[in-house]
């Protein structure tokens, strides 16, 4: 077998890899969208007055957060069909990622809401604002900037965890690299290219998140330009 990096081979498989990258981006985007919504539901469970719901919610979040995403993927993919629910690998992957990262996002939301000073609530009370109005016009606009760094980090986090989807057969970038590598008996180029593609996407994304954070802080008047 030829040693060293074969540029011609890398060039040959490049289109295939780039197409698969598109799938990775879609998977990350859809998974993130689901996680954002799931996080809201966990947040609701946390803030409802019912003690039982609080406890169940907390234990569920704790369970999901302290077990590996990989086995959760296997669980959803292999167990649901036994109960007659047949979902595609894509759907299973998206649901699992949404659930897993939803628990993390609910913590981000919680931290952001707690970051809003209590006096803001009291002032709204004093002004006789309704709860909905208080959330919409006073609390959420202040909580959102606090949540942005955390939310951005988990977007990058989900992106980096999408290769796990290949284990249940979702045709994303890593899956494509493994397939190409197996077909040609060469893993050096495909896996190296996966690494480079991830770097070229996630480093700008992380920089963008950092930049966004700074801009929000400036807009909020926390930092002077």
């Amino acid at each position: 077998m030829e040693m060293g990096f074969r540029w011609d081979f890398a060039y040959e498989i490049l289109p295939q890899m780039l197409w698969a990258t598109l799938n990775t981006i879609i998977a990350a985007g859809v998974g993130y969208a689901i996680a954002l919504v799931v996080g809201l539901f966990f947040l609701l469970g946390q803030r409802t007055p019912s003690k039982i719901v609080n406890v169940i919610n907390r234990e569920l979040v704790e369970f999901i957060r302290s077990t590996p995403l990989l086995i959760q993927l296997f669980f959803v993919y292999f167990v649901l069909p036994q109960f007659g629910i047949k979902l595609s690998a894509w759907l299973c992957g998206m649901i699992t990622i949404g659930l897993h990262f939803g628990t993390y996002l609910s913590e981000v939301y919680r931290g952001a809401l707690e970051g809003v000073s209590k006096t803001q609530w009291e002032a709204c009370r004093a002004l006789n604002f309704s709860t909905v109005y208080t959330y919409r016009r006073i609390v959420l606009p202040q909580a959102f900037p606090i949540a942005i760094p955390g939310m951005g980090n988990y977007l990058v986090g989900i992106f980096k965890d999408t290769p796990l989807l290949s284990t249940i057969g979702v045709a994303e970038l890593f899956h494509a690299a493994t397939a190409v590598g197996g077909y040609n008996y060469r893993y050096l180029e495909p896996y190296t290219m996966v690494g480079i593609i991830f770097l070229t996407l996630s480093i700008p994304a992380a920089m963008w998140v950092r930049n966004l954070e700074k801009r929000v802080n400036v807009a909020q008047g926390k930092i002077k330009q």
Partner: protein
Amino acid sequence: MSYFAFLAEHGPTLLLGTVTTIKVLVCSAILYVIISMIFGLMRLSKKSAIQGIATVYIEFFRGTSLLVQLFWVYYVLPFFGLSLEAFVAGVVALGLNFGAYGAEIVRAGILAVPKGQWEAAHALNFSPTKRIKRIIIPQIFPIILPPAANLTVELLKATALVALVTVVDLTFEAKQINSITWLSAQCFGTALLIYYIMARFALVPFLRWLEVVAARKVGR
């Protein structure tokens, strides 16, 4: 087949896998702590070359996926004549990946030590090595342990990935049993429970204990 019958038959296998998972966890935790100390200090070096190396290392390992790194170490390094055993490859990849995250924690911890401590050590004419070793490092533990504890729980979860490069750990055994018996709910459910118990009732209490000890050591 009842769940108890399942446990009686496959429980020992799963426990054997759990032992491997613990071994992977301990080895990679030791490796990542060492790496994060070294690169966390390098990141704060005044020499731009040293700082640059650390920055590249950190950005590289934080910017790519752990699974990709793991496969690269296991399947690609042999192309360069370096064949690692699956267990070693898994530990190395985990250690390098988490070391990058840990280095940032160490860096933030060192920066969080009050400036007066540096100045006092300087005023007492301590050598730079002694300053770091005797004054700064002992003080960073109460600062870095809480985020490091989170990272270590993430590490336990991440050890599941080594199953994909044929390390026979808990995840590997669960997958194996699943492919023989097709009792997916039982085997993956049990694996999830074991990971949960390890994290919640062993690892987290241990790390909390470490935090308490570290806080007491600096007199808090």
